[in-house]
């Protein structure tokens, strides 16, 4: 019923504002606004101008020419930020020609028509990081995008937003050539062991440091690695097991790297250490049942309260939907994180402002504040309730999804 009423108001309003020819000012009135950056606002108004939040609060004068969207008693919150999502690209994500491909940019394969994007929008995601696949030790550069746009350039929020490193055996998995096959063919890849993965990482950062000091001839790959050394490009390390987390932290110390840890299934075991070293984590969706494949056998020691334990130790925690299309949506992930022991406000931050900070786009997205992008969700109730539905998704001030 409520949904119908909203829809009706909407249908009535849209033609009016369109007729005036200046629909660039919109006011959203709502019973409850979760700003994330501050306290919730009861009976507040958000004023949107040119796709940005012009003002937000309770005593805001709505300009006469503004189109008003009355969300009634619905809950309004910022659009979700997914720090690791299904990549909306054409074709394979893993470049097979080499294990070290730091200069590859996933933005060059971005497909604005991707179905994955539209699904993400419907689950409330308005900003996401996409990264190359997990089969390379250093996979390449990720990009932060918004899930709408006709051409890739329209979508990009931040290019070269992350350098993807894979610490777990994923990058070695399948490289072992069976004894009966000759190893001297094109598909023969290294590494095959954890030792080799770590060696390759150390070597490439060593080379990058040499490159940065000597500045011999231009080299794209080394150039990117050296800017990662300088913290100009954040390093996302895909790592699940505690043993690998410890190792990558050691490497980080050696080369002075500022890391962001992805997946981090066993992060709770090294929570104190991560907090001390100020390393943020992006937790993937967790599976209670270990998969049969060798990849999933890594990180078998699952703790349901991984997010809660990390957060209470003082680690910056973001929840992500992960690169599998079948994984749960972010709000549900946050809901279950609370079920398992995470604080409510921490969980809400973990899908909004924290990932925005980790991705270094918190000046644009992640909370409802003056000057930020108007990425807004209208929900039928409390965001951390399984029966709450996303009624409307607004991206850059435009409605991109309405539930029917």
């Amino acid at each position, binding site marked *: 019923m409520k949904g119908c009423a909203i829809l009706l108001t909407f249908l009535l309003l849209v033609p009016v504002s369109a007729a005036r020819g200046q629909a660039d000012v919109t006011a959203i009135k709502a019973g409850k606004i979760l700003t994330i950056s501050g306290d919730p606002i009861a009976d507040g108004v958000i004023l949107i101008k040119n796709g940005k939040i012009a003002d937000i609060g309770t005593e805001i004068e709505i300009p006469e020419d503004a189109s008003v969207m009355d969300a009634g008693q619905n809950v309004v919150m910022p659009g979700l930020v997914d720090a690791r999502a299904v990549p909306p690209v054409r074709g394979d994500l893993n470049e097979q020609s080499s294990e070290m491909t730091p200069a590859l940019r996933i933005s060059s394969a971005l497909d604005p028509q991707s179905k994955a994007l539209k699904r993400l929008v419907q689950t409330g995601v308005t900003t996401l990081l996409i990264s190359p696949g997990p089969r390379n030790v250093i996979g390449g550069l990720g990009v932060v995008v918004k899930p709408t746009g006709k051409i890739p350039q329209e979508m990009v929020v931040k290019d070269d937003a992350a350098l993807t490193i894979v610490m777990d055996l994923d990058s070695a998995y399948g490289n072992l050539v069976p004894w009966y096959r000759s190893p001297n063919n094109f598909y023969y890849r290294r590494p095959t062991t954890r030792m080799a993965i770590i060696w390759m990482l150390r070597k490439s950062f060593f080379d990058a440091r040499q490159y940065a000091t000597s500045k011999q001839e231009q080299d794209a790959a080394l150039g990117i690695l050296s800017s990662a050394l300088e913290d100009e490009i954040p390093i996302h390390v895909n790592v699940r097991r505690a043993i690998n987390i410890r190792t990558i932290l050691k490497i980080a110390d050696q080369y002075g790297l500022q890391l962001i840890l992805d997946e981090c299934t066993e992060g709770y*075991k090294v929570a104190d*250490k991560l907090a001390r070293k100020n390393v943020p984590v992006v937790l993937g969706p967790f599976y*209670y049942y270990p998969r049969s494949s060798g990849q999933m056998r890594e990180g078998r020691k699952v703790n349901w309260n991984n997010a809660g334990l990390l957060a209470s130790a003082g680690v910056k925690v973001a929840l992500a939907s992960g690169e599998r299309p079948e994984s749960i949506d972010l709000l549900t992930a946050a809901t*279950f994180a609370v079920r398992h022991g995470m604080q409510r406000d921490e969980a809400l931050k973990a899908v909004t402002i924290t990932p925005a900070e980790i991705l270094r786009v918190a000046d644009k997205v992640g909370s409802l504040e003056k000057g930020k992008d108007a990425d807004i969700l209208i929900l039928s109730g409390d965001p951390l309730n399984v*029966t709450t539905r996303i009624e409307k998704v607004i991206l850059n001030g435009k409605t991109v999804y309405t539930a029917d």
Partner: protein
Amino acid sequence: MKSRSSIAFVSMLLTSFVLSPLAHAAPVRKKLAIKAGRIITIAGADIKNGVILTEDGMIKAVGTDVEIPWDAFVIEAKDQVVMPGFVLAHTSSGLDRANENVPEVPFLSTFDSIDPISTFFEDSLRDGVVAMLVLPGNDTLLGGTGTVVKPHGRTVEAMLIERDTGLKISLRPTRNTSRMGHMQRFRRYMSDLKEYLEEYEQRKADAKEEKKPFDEEIDPRKQPMIDLLNQRLTAFVYCDRAADVPKAIDIQKTDKLNTVLVLSPDCYKAVGLVAKSKLPVILDPELIVWETNEETNEEEMKIIPMIFHQAGVKFALQTDTSQYGRRYLWYQAATAVKHGMKRTEALKSITLYPAQFIGVDDRLGSIEAGKEATVIFLTGDPFDAQTWVDQVMIAGQIVYEREKDERLKKLLEEPEAIPTPEDTD
């Protein structure tokens, strides 16, 4: 049927005493009174501050003005919500292997394959499931018969509620066969079976005419299919695609089989046919699918339970482990509620309806006088993700207590710190 279940009950008791360190079940009290803050009866309206009176594991009375006998043991559940335990109408979990690699094996039974120490059963109990029909998987044409068990007990015999319930028929072609071949195989099996029965009857009649003794027994390998024809067994027909639905309905009509449809998400396209057939339906664990609209080329979200609900189809929900929330029946029902289904109907789809479909609704599925005292104690509303199952009672006996759930503690609590030299930095 009664005696069988009582044998199962006694053997369950015996095993629980023998293996007491693992199954820390409380004793069965003759008379019990549960004073609950809220009772979701399913049979009728919810009751606030009500009492459930039980005797010998059966519910005697439910209501607010129930007199508690002096000799009844009182369970105080003032802050809890008490509701019937969840029932899972279709699963192939808890088996060592769900599918035999021969397509026509109706004579197999999951009873022989259920692994009582599988974590699936332990988790089910923790999540408030009190009965499930374990059927063969979806990759075998005539897969075998199912077993209704409760997720409590250390042997299959102890877990048993009902043997040989339902027979799995899967319309999904087995590996390397076509749909044509698959259907043809089914038809040939049925015509061979009918021929066999006719000849058998003929031989029986001949013997009678010749006044000879007739001691030929029915081929036991065919027995489950004959039971199916005689409506002593229910067919659980798995439809992999919408195109399989008319075939399943056709099979049902031809031989007047008792049928429950087990539908994949794609089958929503045949919702009209399903509704018209009035057959009970078990929906796929995947409740939301995305599809590209061919006309607009837009991605559309299809909410499967809503499509069936609006068409007036009665359905049960099931679970799987491919996605985190989906492993909970309450989450599945909550997903339906999220998209507009009525709460009461959604609750029925995980309690009463599945109990009806697997033929245990005389004992389970709702809280009313005459049914088994098989209830779960929740910390709050069943659809709230912050709610936990505090206790599970099966036939008047508490078989699960969250306080004593060591594995759950391990899954949620901080591990012991492992200090290493490098941690000192």
